[in-house]
C-alpha cells in the first residue's frame, strides 16, 4: 500500500512571532522551523501502516522554499522512503492554490497513492482546508480529524473524535484522511534513520502554484490584554464575582 503524506514547514510553536516590515508577512529572522506537529501524526501513521503490512512505500510531499527540504529529510529520517519537494518561495499562500498544486502533482503521478494523509491543520495559518480541498479536486472521499485508523481489504475504518464521543467511519480506498492529536505518538528520528535519510531520493521541482485567490492584506498583533482587577477578598467577594462572571464576562 502506497501512502502520500503532505507535510508543512511551520515556525516552532514556542517562537515569539514578529510581524515583518511589510505588515503582511512574519519576520523570519531567528525562527526555528519544525514539521507541523499534526503532520507528524500523519507521517507516523503512514510508517506504522507500512510496518504492519510489511510492504508499501511512504512518500512525503512538501511545498515551500529551499529550506523546506529539511521537512522532507526529517520525515525520511523517521523512515519515509522518498520525498517530493515542490519549491515555492511565496509566503501566506492561499490554501486553495496549495491544494490545486498538490492535486495536480498527484494527478501527474504514474502510480497513484492508495492513501493521502494530511495533518488536520497547520499551526501557523490554521486554515484546516487543504486536505479536504485536495480530496474534492481529486474526487476522493475525505475523512477529517482521525484519531484511530485500521486498514483491511482496501477499506479504512477510522475514528473521529467528536463532542461527547467517537464517530466510526468506514471509507473505501483510495481516500484522503486528516490526522488529529491522539492518533499516535510520533517516533523520534533514530540516528541510523538520520544517516540513512541522505541516501533516499527526493524529487525537487518548481511548485508552479496557481495564483492566490485569497491574499493576506495586513497582519496585526492581538490587542494588549487588559489587566485583571481584584473583585474583593474572602468569601464575601464570591457573590460579586459570580455576578461579574455572569453579566460581564458572560462565562456562566
Amino acid at each position, binding site marked *: 500500500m502506497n501512502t502520500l503524506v503532505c507535510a508543512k514547514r511551520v515556525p516552532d510553536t514556542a517562537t515569539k512571532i514578529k510581524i515583518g516590515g511589510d505588515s503582511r508577512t512574519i519576520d523570519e529572522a531567528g525562527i526555528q522551523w519544525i514539521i507541523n506537529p499534526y503532520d507528524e501524526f500523519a507521517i507516523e501513521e503512514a510508517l506504522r501502516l507500512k510496518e504492519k503490512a510489511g510492504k508499501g512505500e511512504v512518500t512525503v510531499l512538501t511545498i515551500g522554499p529551499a529550506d523546506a527540504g*529539511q521537512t522532507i*529529510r*526529517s520525515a525520511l529520517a523517521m523512515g519515509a522512503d522518498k520525498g517530493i519537494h515542490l519549491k515555492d518561495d511565496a509566503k501566506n499562500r492561499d490554501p486553495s492554490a496549495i491544494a490545486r498544486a498538490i492535486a495536480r502533482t498527484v494527478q501527474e503521478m504514474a502510480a497513484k497513492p492508495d492513501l493521502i494523509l494530511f495533518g488536520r491543520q497547520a499551526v501557523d495559518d490554521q486554515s484546516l482546508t487543504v486536505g479536504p480541498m485536495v480530496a474534492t479536486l481529486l474526487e476522493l472521499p475525505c475523512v477529517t480529524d482521525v484519531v484511530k485508523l485500521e486498514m483491511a481489504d482496501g477499506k479504512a475504518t477510522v475514528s473521529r473524535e467528536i463532542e461527547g464521543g467517537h464517530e466510526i467511519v468506514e471509507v473505501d480506498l483510495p481516500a484522503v484522511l486528516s490526522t488529529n492529536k491522539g492518533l499516535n505518538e510520533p517516533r523520534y528520528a533514530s*540516528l541510523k534513520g538520520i544517516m540513512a*535519510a541522505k541516501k533516499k531520493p527526493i524529487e525537487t521541482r518548481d511548485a508552479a502554484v496557481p495564483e492566490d485567490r485569497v491574499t493576506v492584506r495586513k497582519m496585526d498583533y492581538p490587542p494588549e490584554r487588559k489587566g485583571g482587577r481584584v473583585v474583593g477578598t474572602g468569601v464575601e467577594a464570591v457573590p460579586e464575582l459570580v455576578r461579574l462572571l455572569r453579566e460581564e464576562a458572560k462565562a456562566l
Partner: protein
Amino acid sequence: MREFRGVDFYQIDALLSEEERMVRDTVREFVSDRVMPIIEECFREGRFPTHLVPAMAELGLFGANLKGYGCAGLSSVGYGLILQELERGDSGVRSAVSVQGSLCMWPIFTYGSEAQKERWLPRMARGEVIGCFGLTEPDHGSDPGGMETRAVRKGDRYVINGTKRWITNGTIADLAVVWAKLQPENKIRGFLVEKGTPGFSAPEIPRKWSLRASVTSDLILEDCEVPAGNLLPGVEGLKGPLGCLNNARFGIAWGAIGSMMATYEEAVEYAKHRVQFDRPIAGFQLTQAKFADMLTEITKAQLLALRLGRLKDAGQATPAQVSLAKRNNVYWALEMARMGRQVLGASGITDEYQAGRHMANIESVITYEGTHEIHTLVLGQEITGLSAFK
C-alpha cells in the same frame, strides 16, 4: 521552564552538517521529553533511569560512532553532540552512555576478535547488554600503570584477582571490560568478564552526593575464572585502556558544553524575572558580568570541541589535544554551575533548579577520565618535553 534552545552565539550550527544538526535536535527533544521530567527525582533518590535504556538504544545512542554491528556510524562531531545534549540533562545519564559506547563497545570493536565483536556489539547497541570499564582501583587512579589486579593463565582459562573502584554501570552491567596485569609477562591486558561468573561481584558504592542518577560500583574479582576466548587479543599495555579513555574524554569535552548551556540558560531566565530593589537582577552589573563570562566560555568551548571533532574524524587528533579540550571545558562547566547557582540565590539550593545538581555532578567529571591536574601535566609535557608526572 520554557523549552531548551541551546546556545549558539557564533553561529556554530552553520559549521555542522544537516545530519549533525538533526542528530543534535533528536537527542535534545528526547532529553526534554524523557529525561528532564524524571531526572530530579532520580538524582534525589540515587537511581539511574534504567527504564530509559530501551528508548536510548532505539534512538541509537549506544556506540553511535562505531561502524557496523547495528551501530549508527556517526562522525565524531555527531557523537559529541549526542553527549552534549545528554549532559544538558544530567552528567550521570551521559556517563552511562559514554561508558557503554566509548569504554565498553569501543575496546571490543578496536581490540576484540571478530567472534567477540559479533557476540557482544549488536546486543550492546540494542541496550540488551550493559557494559562497564574496570581500570581504576582503590589505590590506583591517576596511575593506572600501578594496578594490582592480576591475571594468570590456567589451562584454557584465565584467573583474575583484584578490585576495581568507581566503576560507572558496574552493578547493572552484564559485561565488564577488566584490565589486569597478565602474569608472568606482567603486561596489561583486557578481559571480558560476564555477570554471574563465580568470583565476580559488583556492589554499588553508597553515600554519593555526585552522579547520583548513575550507578557507581566496585568490581570484586576473587579467583574469577574467564575462558581464554574472553581475552581481548588486539592490544597489550596501558595504551589499551588509554585508547578507550581518549575517546571517552573527547565525548566529555562535548558533554561539558551541554551542562554549561543548561546552567547558563537557567540563570539568565531566572535573573530576568527575579526583582530586587525594584528591578530585575539581570539589569545589575555584577550579574551581567557573570553572564558575559558564561557566554564567552560556552562559545570558546564549542569552538574547541568542534575543531577537535573535525581533527578526530581526519585521524589527526592527538591525546594532548583531547586533554586540552576536556580540561578546559569541564573546568568551566564546574565554574559555570557555581556561578549559575549564585545567580539563583537561595532558590539554587533546592533541586527545583538544576545548577546545584550540575555543580555536584561536575565535581566527578573534573576528576574522572583524567583529573584536571593530570591533563595539566599532559599539556606541560607536550609543551616542554619534560614529564612532571613523577
